[in-house]
């Protein structure tokens, strides 16, 4: 298996929205190589005809009674926000200046 490069890790970090430093990327590339080498052992198991298990409980369409209950409320919902204004979450700009 090809080694994980620092560029690979940088791409994954972008996907995961983590602004890693160059040092972090280098360290992680080396560690991921070792970890992936170890976990790739699952590929030794002959399992072509085996169905996957995503969950140990075989449940589907679980509902609870549709009874109205009081909600959290805006004031409490934003109480722990890093920034709030008029009972709303205040966030940094989400569009480019030019957009």
């Amino acid at each position, binding site marked *: 298996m090809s080694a*994980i490069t620092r560029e*690979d*890790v940088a791409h*994954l*970090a*972008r*996907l*995961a*929205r*983590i*602004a*890693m*430093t160059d040092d*972090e990327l280098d360290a*992680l590339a080396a*560690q*991921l190589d*070792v*970890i*992936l080498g*170890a*976990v*790739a*052992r*699952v*590929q*030794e*198991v002959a*399992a072509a005809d*085996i*169905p*996957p*298990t*995503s*969950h*140990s*409980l075989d*449940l589907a369409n*679980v509902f*609870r*009674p549709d009874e109205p209950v009081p909600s*959290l409320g805006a004031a*409490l*919902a*934003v*109480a*722990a*926000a*890093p*920034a709030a204004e008029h009972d709303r*979450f205040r*966030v*940094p*700009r*989400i569009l*480019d200046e030019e957009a």
Partner: protein
Amino acid sequence: MNPLLAATATELAAKIAAREVSAVEVAQAHLDRIAEVDEKVHAFLHVDTDGALAQARRVDDGEISGPLAGVPLALKDVIVTKGVPTTAGSRILQGWVPPYDATIVERMRAAGIVVLGKTNMDEFAMGSSTEHSAFGPSRNPWDLTRTPGGSGGGSSAAVASYQAPIGIGTDTGGSIRQPAAVTGTVGAKPTYGGVSRYGLIAFSSSLDQAGPCARTVLDAALLHEVIGGHDPRDSTSIAAAVPPVVAAARQADVSGMRIGVVTQFKGDGYQPGVLARFDESVAILEKLGATVEEVSCPHFDYALPAYYLIAPSEASSNLARYDAMRYGLRVGDDGVASAEEVMAATRDAGFGAEVKRRIILGTYALSAGYYDAYYGQAQKVRTLISRDFASAFERVDVLVSPTTPTTAFTLGERVDDPMAMYLADLCTIPSNLYGGPALSLPCGLSDDGLPVGLQVMAPVQADERMYRVAAAVEAALGSDKLLEKAPPL
């Protein structure tokens, strides 16, 4: 030491109910113990003195009664508590005060349990030593240079050092059982779905399960019954009664039971003292009237690699919620940076190395082109592991193994070697992948003088079997007295 500290939860509840001692006195004795020793152990991240004493007064006023009313408890900081800070061991949640209670917190309050505070853990429950806590490691009361295990090392260390008679942990790959094993305490992971996950901060949702920590098997069973049972707020909660775990712990009789020793979990890599205590425990089970046979579970050899694909994959998705927008840490919001830049800067500053490692690993395993070879294949191995359990339980009632390959390791020894750290969960992971219950209880000391854990694994929804076996071993070995051999703090 104040005798109230050495008492079991069962004894304390009886004394409180009989008005021999007040719940406030019991709570205060434990708060004093925390003040006295926790500087050394660092089991707690937050002590809720006012909340604990207020709840104790409610018990003393006769507002609440029950088998654990007035008993103090150490709560892992991954369980949300209304009005009480909850961090999951992460800087990204430092200072967060949840607006709601987890279901198990509501149930414990209603049962009169006195939550003393929130205990230390590896960040988002990812680790086996508490060294990945953003707030520094906890220490093993048996030897302060060693880890109390993880991720729930704080709760187990608190229970082992008499700061609380019982605690709550959560177990995704062994985070209740491995700390119990290395601190000489009892820890049980219920059947997946047996205890509500509502208000349990998610790491790997198909594996996470909360459960009891205690110094005796009966105390663990009593707490299991309080927190267990169906919860409509958790769609993966089992709609059935809690298995009769307290009755089983009191029964403590294994005559006629069939015990399977897992072939895969012994031999190379296991400390000789761990294997010796394990073999003695198996011999005791035979002496008590159980039949013992060896059972091979060939796919257990692949449980660790499958787990380290499945859990990080789920984590990479679950932890996407820490986006710096609605709660928790926000860094780099200078009025110029975009939301995406703030998000990425916050996640870099707020997550520790292990959490980042697992998010990146999970992101990789779920990527197009790698999905089938990694995550998809791990899910198939998960099926095969469940089939191993199913065939084993056609022959035997429970499976047993050492809980961990070694006793407590030294702080710093594995923190820079992720694969060495992951090996601590070798024997505990299969039950999480299968969804069945498993329990660890102390079964003596290894050659290094440190506690060894015996793991008992049972079929899905047959939690009572593991309590029955554990209580019998505990009575025969006197392992509820093992902590008396720990050096004083």
